[in-house]
């Protein structure tokens, strides 16, 4: 068991190292950040000073070595544009993205599952067909377009909620979030809905398929024969069974919510990590881009590592196979 974990750890380290090579070199061969930074009034001497201050006059391998040395000590470099540690900037913007992704996930579950349940129970009704048709739009319409349409409808025409920005922050159990104030909730509604659309469609389809399958199964027939009410059969027995794949997929999709938030955050001027990343890419703020990607890589490697270890504890066959290989 210990050998297995050590081996997995080493593999994870190797993956992180390989990714750092790909990310660092990939980001550093594109474009020239100096001309994005210096004022047009700067003369040749000023430009050269800026290049050497940023360390861009050094050979790329030396730059990479310095990056590795810093990274080993938890320093992923300073932002070219803000002059602050890139890691600090990202962590500063993380809560906004997390609350957005979290709200979107809640919306996906609260809206998607009941609609999917209905569509699964009454597959032939007009409403069900309407729900399924709408879910196709959820899959296929581009996020940025839907986002603008949502703004035009709910913010400009109806004036129910604000168009952009993050609202007032509230504090609850020591956590600062815009979810704890009315103003904050009114601000987060549209971006969360926009981000959730794809996931709502996914939840509808997963739930519907599960319900359709379960309704024909023997345990449902037995429950009926036993005289249970339809309500109890669906809400207790069917739901319990179909929730397993829905919860699993939705959990996995949380990661992609964070990833997809880039577009939504830009449209709704939401001050999260995605917005930070997009701005950093446009302005070629290399340390921020590299740090962001490295954090994501580390995140995924860690999750996979934990899952692998959990599997090996739960299922001895995984361990045995690994030793055989």
């Amino acid at each position: 068991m210990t050998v297995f974990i050590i081996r997995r750890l080493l593999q994870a380290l190797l993956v992180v190292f390989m990714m750092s090579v790909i990310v660092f070199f990939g980001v550093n061969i594109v474009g020239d950040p100096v001309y994005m930074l210096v004022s047009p009034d700067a003369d040749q001497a000023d430009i050269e000073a800026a290049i050497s201050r940023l360390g861009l006059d050094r050979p790329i391998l030396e730059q990479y070595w310095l990056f590795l040395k810093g990274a080993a000590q938890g320093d992923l470099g300073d932002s070219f544009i803000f002059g602050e540690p890139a890691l600090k900037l990202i962590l500063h913007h993380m809560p906004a993205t997390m609350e957005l992704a979290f709200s979107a996930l809640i919306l996906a579950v609260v809206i998607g599952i009941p609609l999917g349940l209905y569509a699964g129970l009454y597959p032939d009704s007009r409403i069900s067909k309407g729900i399924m048709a709408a879910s196709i739009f959820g899959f296929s319409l581009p996020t940025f377009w839907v986002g603008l349409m949502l703004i035009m409808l709910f913010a400009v025409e109806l004036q129910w909620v604000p168009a952009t920005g993050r609202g007032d922050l509230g504090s609850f159990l020591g956590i600062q979030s815009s979810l704890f104030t009315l103003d904050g909730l009114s601000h987060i509604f549209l971006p969360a809905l926009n981000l959730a659309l794809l996931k709502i469609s996914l939840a509808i389809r997963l739930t519907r398929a599960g319900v359709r399958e379960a309704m024909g199964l023997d345990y449902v027939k037995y429950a009926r024969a036993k005289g249970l009410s339809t309500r109890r059969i669906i809400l207790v027995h069917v739901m319990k069974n179909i929730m397993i794949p829905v919860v699993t997929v939705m959990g996995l999709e949380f990661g992609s919510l964070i990833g997809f938030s880039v577009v939504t955050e830009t449209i709704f001027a939401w001050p999260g990590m995605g917005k930070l990343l997009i701005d950093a890419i446009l302005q070629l703020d290399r340390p921020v881009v590299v740090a962001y990607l490295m954090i994501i890589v580390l995140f995924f490697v860690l999750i996979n590592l934990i899952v692998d270890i959990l599997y090996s504890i739960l299922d001895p066959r995984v361990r045995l196979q690994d030793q055989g290989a």
Partner: protein
Amino acid sequence: MRKFTAATAVAFGILAYGVGAASAEKLTIGLASEPTSLDPHFHNLGPNNAMSVHIFDRLIAQDEKQRLSPGLAVSWEPVDELTWEFKLREGVKFHDGSDFNADDVVCTMARAPDVPNSPSGYGTYLKGKEVIKIDDYTVHFKTAAPYPLMGNDISTIPVISELGCDSTTEDFNAGTAAIGTGPFKFQSYTPGESIVLVRNDEYWGDTPVWSEVEFRPITSGPSRVASLLAGDVDMISGVPTTDITTLKGNDDIQLSQGVSNRVIYLHMDQFRENSPFVKANGGGDIKNPLMDVRVRKAISMAISRDAIVDRVMEGVALPAGQLLPEGFFGVSDNLDVVAYDPEGAKALMAEAGYADGFEMTIHGPNDRYINDAKIVEAIAQMLTRVGIKTAVETMPRSVYFGRASKGSPEGLPEFSFILVGWGAGSGEASSPLKSLIHTYDKDAGFGSSNRGRHSDSETDALIEEALRTVDDAKRQDLLARATERAIENVAIIPTHFQVNTWAAKKGLSYIARTDEYTLATGVVKE
């Protein structure tokens, strides 16, 4: 041009009216681009400078047309060839109640060029200047050679208090050091979200109308417009040209427009016998035709500036015949916009020996200037029509400017024919002349953005003489002559001046600025 001046005149009348009615009113502005810091010396960047104007005064202010006017200095004049004397305003207080005097100026000028981690500092403007305190309200700036642009240079430096001189950029962003003498005081700053300022009731100049101003960065153009329509914000900067027509038809919205100091122009390779992106018909090598002034002239004549302005820019630009729009210091009265004349262009090409034309690629950015990629395409079509078969390649600015400046294997400009823009930060003609037209000279700091490497000794001499001439009338004349000669030689081809658009809810208008700044003090009620 007349249209814009008239609008400004009206706006001024409104300003005079608006100032009288100071009361508790909040203004929210949606910004197209966000400042990167509240430290006024951290990053010499348009949005940062515009924000710092609210909190920090300069010794010399630039008005909406970038003309110099007294700020924290009441007067500035040369006392001898190498010394400028600045008399400081007395009785001015910083936001923390401390008095403003010469010590603040001395320490400001020491800090401005020297902020740790600064991506682009203010050393450019303070190079070779020594600051000496004479008494509490007199300061001397000494230079090694006569220096006429002292006022323009000093007008770019925000003055901080002595307390701020020992502070870090973080202290400024936290607000503890963001203490100036300006019309607004720091209230709060959340990067990516908002900057809130409150009125400085003890301001030495005209007290602002607005008691509180919130700036919110909304970088996506359509979202910014939607936020205005939804009433989230009272005014936005950088209205996308595609939305201008729709907004004009909206009775609840008021547009304010004004020409900027930014000229959009074409640089042509004038230093390589074989230019990498110029080929003979069919793709063979050719002696660089862009070296021939007749070819350059023909290209200029083949471009319909009216078509660019009317079609591509939807009317929101002014055709350009020189480096700055009329009204700026150093502009020539003798230059007109080059008339569109495709037949004349063909004749000139034939005279130069290119009756059958040649092949060329035009390069340009696609996310830097208003409609840049569309302009590049339009120009390529116009040139193709007179026989110069022009291919188009556009790219993001993060890639473009590096390659355009030193992308070739030898570290020289990579492209042959490019579209670029230049905003004259100093608000007068020496800025583009020095950087774009003068022969590339690394040691002297001339021609730093001369990506076509045009070189003409007579023009150089005129520019250098202008930069030594302290007498305003003489310098104006020298700059105008240098501009005339550069345009005569087709050193570059100016196409148009950008016009900026702000949109506000009904009842508000903005005094458009040539430097493209968005200032709360320029928002007036009707």
